[in-house]
């Protein structure tokens, strides 16, 4: 057996049913071996899409997503995708070709130091120097990628190693003495957390992506119910808790819902689960949850105390820690003091439900588009987004109910993520509908992969929210830069419908109220990949907390579905901020 064959066998043994890749000179031996193998390979049209597709595959399924690219430019094209996966703790395995070992370091044709380049954006990386190590390296890569805090792995595979004969295929793992992720939380700390929770009168749960990767949604619901705590999420935590619930407050942070931002400001106990307190979530750190005792549960010890000072730190897997915590809370017979709080939140929540019905407005309001998306899609549908306004509208206005149904580039904020991630998600979960919501700017960065969805018949639906602006940057220019719209208008081309049709992809333009819903239903019924070009109002702005401000300082007015005048007397939001940073 040769090195390349060993790689393929190891991948298949580890359950990698599909890989996304793009061949090249230094991968010729491997691709020659793929030709005869059972490995399902999807030829993307740009390596970046291979990495994002593997990421979408991983986030939708919870399995490792695999991508392959050749040495040099192929490998560097993966880099954005790998960094995206790293920031969002997604288990992506990238296999990069490399020049033959005797040429490494000679600046050979298409040589790049992929190990050096990806060191800061991978959980770990390996350069294979002996084909006999391949099974162990692949096995370890899967273990490392999925365990503890998940993350991307790179395997750098020189050409000669792909052809080297193995002495023996040994199905083993590399021993890594320096890697022992903590799963079970510290008993005493969990006890302290339980005591704090019992004493608290106004608890809030903040759920992050760790809840989803640990599969702890059930436990999260149980905890919320047990202690009467409303739940807010980070962007990556979205879909960890059913957002139709009256105690779901939606997303927290710069573009969070008012109820979430103000409740975190008011709460006396914040239970943060599997999140890392990014600046987009906390706003000004000194003003974050000023009245709360903070309990932070995370599998990565380095995240605890990194951004926010924590009162009760618990290192461990969200699911396992929550199970122990719930057990401890259930045993305790202390009276519950939180009924008043949860009733208050429910009422407050009702008064903050964002208005999504804009049936008399043209061009279409994005909120109306979100409403029609919700009407056309079921709760099993996996949504992916790009980055920018489209992403925040989705986060804000589109309610998700089940874990792993909302996939978005949070940490790195990668434009062009949505469409290829949807492609990967659909390959991983063929039974679910998959819809990508993109901006016109982001989609154009990856539009060449319409060829991939067509060739492989991957029936994703791409909704391009088309306002001819780089909307989020334009929004900041409007709010903080005197409306000087420097290079954010995208002009009049392309015609997205014709673009899609040139790839043989079904396409439709939507300009009227009600048509988004219809177009989506038709697209899903057709079973074909479809692009829907939705012309939206470029003027629409989402209220936001300016950078460097506390979470209660919201600029812009939230449009509310139902006002309850006089019933709720809540802290007024300040509207005084000028300028941003």
């Amino acid at each position, binding site marked *: 057996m040769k090195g390349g064959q060993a790689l393929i066998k190891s991948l298949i043994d580890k359950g990698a049913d599909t890989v996304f890749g793009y061949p090249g000179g230094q991968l010729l031996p491997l691709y020659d071996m793929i030709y005869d193998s059972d490995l399902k390979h999807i030829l993307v049209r740009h390596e970046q899409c291979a990495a994002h597709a593997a990421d979408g595959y991983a986030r939708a399924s919870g399995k490792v997503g695999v991508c392959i690219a050749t040495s040099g430019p192929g490998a560097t094209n993966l880099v954005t995708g790998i960094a995206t996966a790293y920031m969002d703790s997604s288990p992506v395995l990238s296999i990069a070709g490399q020049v033959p070992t005797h040429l490494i370091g000679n600046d050979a044709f298409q040589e790049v130091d992929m*190990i*050096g380049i990806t*060191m*800061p954006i991978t*959980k*770990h990386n390996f350069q294979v120097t002996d084909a006999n190590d391949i099974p162990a390296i692949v096995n370890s890569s899967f273990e*490392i990628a999925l365990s503890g805090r998940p993350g991307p792995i790179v395997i750098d595979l020189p050409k000669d190693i792909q052809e080297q004969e193995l002495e023996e295929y040994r199905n083993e793992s590399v021993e*890594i*003495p*320096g*890697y022992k992720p903590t799963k079970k939380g510290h008993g005493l700390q969990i006890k302290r957390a339980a005591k704090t929770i019992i004493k608290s009168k106004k608890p809030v749960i903040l759920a992050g992506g760790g809840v989803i990767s640990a599969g702890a949604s059930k436990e999260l619901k149980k905890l919320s119910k047990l202690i009467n705590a409303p739940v807010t999420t980070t962007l990556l935590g979205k879909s960890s808790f059913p957002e139709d619930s009256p105690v779901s407050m939606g997303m927290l942070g710069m573009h969070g819902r008012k109820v979430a931002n103000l409740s975190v400001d008011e709460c006396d106990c914040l239970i943060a689960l599997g999140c890392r307190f990014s600046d987009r979530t906390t706003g000004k750190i000194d003003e974050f949850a000023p009245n709360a005792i903070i309990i932070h549960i995370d599998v*990565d*010890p*380095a995240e605890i*105390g*990194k951004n926010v000072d924590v009162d009760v730190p618990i290192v461990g897997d969200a699911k396992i820690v929550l199970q122990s915590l719930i057990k401890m809370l259930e045993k305790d017979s202390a009276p519950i003091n939180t009924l008043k709080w949860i009733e208050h939140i429910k009422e407050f929540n009702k008064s903050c439900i964002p208005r999504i019905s804009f049936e008399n407005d043209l061009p279409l309001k994005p909120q109306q588009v979100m409403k029609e998306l919700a009407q056309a899609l079921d709760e099993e549908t996996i949504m992916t987004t790009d980055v920018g306004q489209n992403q925040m509208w989705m986060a804000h206005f589109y309610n998700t109910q089940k874990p792993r149904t909302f996939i978005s580039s949070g940490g790195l904020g990668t434009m062009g993520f949505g469409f290829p991630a949807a492609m990967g998600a659909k390959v991983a979960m063929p039974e679910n509908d998959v819809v990508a919501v993109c901006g016109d700017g982001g989609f154009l960065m990856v539009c060449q992969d319409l060829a991939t969805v067509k060739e492989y018949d991957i029936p994703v639906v791409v909704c391009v929210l088309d306002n001819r602006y780089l909307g989020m940057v334009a929004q900041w220019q409007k709010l903080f830069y005197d409306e000087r719209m420097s290079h954010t208008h995208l002009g009049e081309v392309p015609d997205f419908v014709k673009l899609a049709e040139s790839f043989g992809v079904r396409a439709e333009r939507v300009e009227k109220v009600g048509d988004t819903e219809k177009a989506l239903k038709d697209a899903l019924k057709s079973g074909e990949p479809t692009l829907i070009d939705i012309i939206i109002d470029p003027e629409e702005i989402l209220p936001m907390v300016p950078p460097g401000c506390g979470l209660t300082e919201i600029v812009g007015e939230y449009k509310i579905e139902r006002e309850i005048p006089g019933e709720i007397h809540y802290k007024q939001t300040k509207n005084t901020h000028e300028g941003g940073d």
Partner: protein
Amino acid sequence: MKGVIKMVMKTENPDSENNHIISALVEHKPGVLQRVAGLFTRRGFNIDSITVGESEIQGIARMTIIAQGDEKVLEQVTKQLNKLLDVIKVRDLEVENTVKRELCLIKVHAPTEKVRSEIIQYANIFRGSIIDVSNEALTIEITGDSDKINALTDLLKGFGIKELARTGPTAMSRGGKTI
């Protein structure tokens, strides 16, 4: 100088609470130093020196990092180092309970017999040894803590130091304790 690794050996202030001696056991294989050094740069941690060499265990190297930063920074450094898969163990050694030594080679301009004997006397006072001698220069090897080495180099400056090579400190806990 946030974000820059200062590989310059400078006198550490032993009284400062912000001085830390981090001892780490790491896998002895290519790329490990790059991972550690890269981590410091990327996270904006300041380090004064790194030394690395074999440890008592085969295949495992010991790294001694002299770094500056308050408790919070140190906690992050330790945690981030621990996250590297090639790093097996990390400890912040207590400054007062640690023996710390550095090796230094100094090539001094010594054109005459008189100058040479003078330099040799200084070297002897500092328990240094002469490891190379020629008509133009003497090379002294000296081991000790950083202050001792600084003191000798200050004395020798008058003769003209042609070349100086310091290893940066390596360290260990006093007594029977290991990391």
